[in-house]
C-alpha cells in the first residue's frame, strides 16, 4: 500500500514536471519573433521555426525525467501536437480557445513508468496528457 501511495505521488510529480516542461517550451518558442515580419509590418509574429523550437525545448526539458518515461524525450516531443497561431484572434481547434495574440501551444501524451501499480493489477505505464500554451503580449 505504501509503495502504491508513493508511486501515485511520484506519478503526480512527474506529471507536474512534464507540464512545466511543455510550459517552458511554449514560452521559449513564443519568445522569439519573426524579424522580417516585424520590419515589414511592425507586428509581432512568432519566429518561422517556432514549432521546431517548441519541440526541441520540450525534449530538452523532459530530459531530466527520462528515467521515469517509457519513451525517449525526443520521441515524445516528436509525437507532440505543436501548433503555432501566427495571427491574433485565431481559435485553437483542439481546445476551442481563442487567442487574442499570437500563441504557441503544445499538447502531448507522456508515458510514465509506474511499475508499483502492477501489484494492484494496474498498467505498468500510465499516460499523462499535457497541454500548455503561451501567448505573446
Amino acid at each position, binding site marked *: 500500500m505504501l509503495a502504491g*501511495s*508513493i508511486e501515485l505521488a511520484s506519478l503526480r510529480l512527474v506529471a507536474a514536471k512534464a507540464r512545466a516542461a511543455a510550459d517552458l517550451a511554449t514560452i521559449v518558442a513564443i519568445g522569439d519573433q519573426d524579424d522580417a515580419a516585424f520590419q515589414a509590418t511592425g507586428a509581432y509574429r512568432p519566429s518561422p521555426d517556432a514549432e521546431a523550437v517548441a519541440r526541441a525545448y520540450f525534449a530538452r526539458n523532459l530530459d531530466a525525467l527520462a528515467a521515469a518515461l517509457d519513451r525517449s524525450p525526443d520521441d515524445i516531443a516528436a509525437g507532440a501536437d505543436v501548433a503555432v497561431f501566427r495571427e491574433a484572434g485565431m481559435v485553437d481547434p483542439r481546445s476551442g480557445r481563442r487567442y487574442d495574440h499570437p500563441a504557441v501551444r503544445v499538447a502531448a501524451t507522456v508515458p510514465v513508468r509506474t511499475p508499483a501499480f502492477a501489484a494492484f493489477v494496474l498498467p505498468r505505464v500510465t499516460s499523462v496528457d499535457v497541454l500548455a500554451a503561451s501567448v505573446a503580449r
Partner: protein
Amino acid sequence: MVALETVLTVTILVPLLFAVIAFGDAFQRWLAQDAAAIQAARLAGEVGGDAPEVRALLADTLRLSGIDPDRVSVEIEPARVGWREPVRLMVTSGVVLDIPFVLHTVMPLRSTAVARGEVNR
C-alpha cells in the same frame, strides 16, 4: 494479546504516517524547487547566462518556498550564453527522510530547466 496487537499496529501505522508526511514534504519541496529553477533559467536566458541577479532570484524564490538557498547547489551552463543558444540551470538539494523503524536517509532533489538566450551580443 492486546499488547502484542498494539506493538504490531504501532510498528506498521507509525512508519506509514511518517512516510506520508515525509514524502509529501519532499515532493512539495521538489515542485517548489522546480518552479524556482524554471524562473531562474528564464532570467538566465534574458540576461545572457550566469549573473548575480539570476542567483539572487533563485535564492529569493527558494527561500519563499522554505528551502535554504545556502544548502542548495546551482549550476548554470554555459556561464555566458549567446542569442538563441540553450542555457541549462540545475539545482540540487537534499531532503531528510526520517521514517521510524524503516528509513533514515537524505533524498537528493534535482531540478533542471533549459531556457534560451535572448541577448544578441
